[in-house]
């Protein structure tokens, strides 16, 4: 799998978790059952995400950052040939490759980075 795709997935996981903790329910569960202080956890998650951003090439980081300004998820799965960002079908040539996540690919319709679930 493409290393930058892996990085972006990690960054997205971190920021999603921070957002979910901030939004309340997960933060409440983490505090009640696991003794996690939500504010501290959010700070740690966002800090780690920022550090990982620096490992992306400038052009990829720029595009990823721009996407994150307008959508919650800049990397989305392709399931059964459909982009789960905009729900438009992906050309067969993109979705059916032997090692489909070896190169960075974006959706021609919405521009999001694609992670093809096989």
């Amino acid at each position, binding site marked *: 799998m493409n290393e930058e795709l892996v990085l972006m997935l990690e960054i997205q996981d971190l920021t999603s978790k921070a957002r979910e903790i901030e939004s309340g329910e997960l933060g409440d569960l983490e505090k009640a059952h696991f003794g996690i202080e939500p504010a501290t956890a959010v700070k740690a998650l966002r800090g780690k995400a920022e550090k990982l951003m620096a490992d992306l090439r400038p052009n990829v980081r720029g595009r990823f950052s721009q996407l994150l300004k307008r959508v919650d998820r800049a990397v989305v*799965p392709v399931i059964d040939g459909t982009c789960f960002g905009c729900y438009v079908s992906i050309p067969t040539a993109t979705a059916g490759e032997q090692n489909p996540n070896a190169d960075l690919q974006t959706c021609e319709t919405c521009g999001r980075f694609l992670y093809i679930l096989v």
Partner: protein
Amino acid sequence: MQLTELFTVDSVKLQLESETKDDLLKELISLLGLDNKSEAILFKTVKRRENLGSTGIGKGIAIPHCRSLVANRLRLAYGRKPGGIDFNAIDGAPVYNFFLIVAPPLEVSNQYLPVLGKIAQFAKDPDVPDLLLALEDPNEFLNLLEEKSR
């Protein structure tokens, strides 16, 4: 959705072999049947959650959990480590029982948080730690889960 519907016999292992926290998490993740690269990504994500604070909730039980794009649906696994290992649990005691919960970032049915809450409640039942240690077969685990979830 019943908790038992989220486990399969293949995702239950009563004789975990790992001796360290990292190896045990990897072994637990392997019960989900993902490809190697997905397992590696998931391990990093699970570890990152552990770095925020151990998911060892005490009384020999831990509930590693996270969301990850490598999961195409809510996935659960249970593993038991005879003898237990140090998992930096809240009570400082060894952990014997591990419940892994992995959910995709986007869920139509949004089951992740309710399931995390249900597993935590199940694990906190005072009878459960001893009942888990007495299990002899994965099917007994599913039966116990069903019985306690009623």
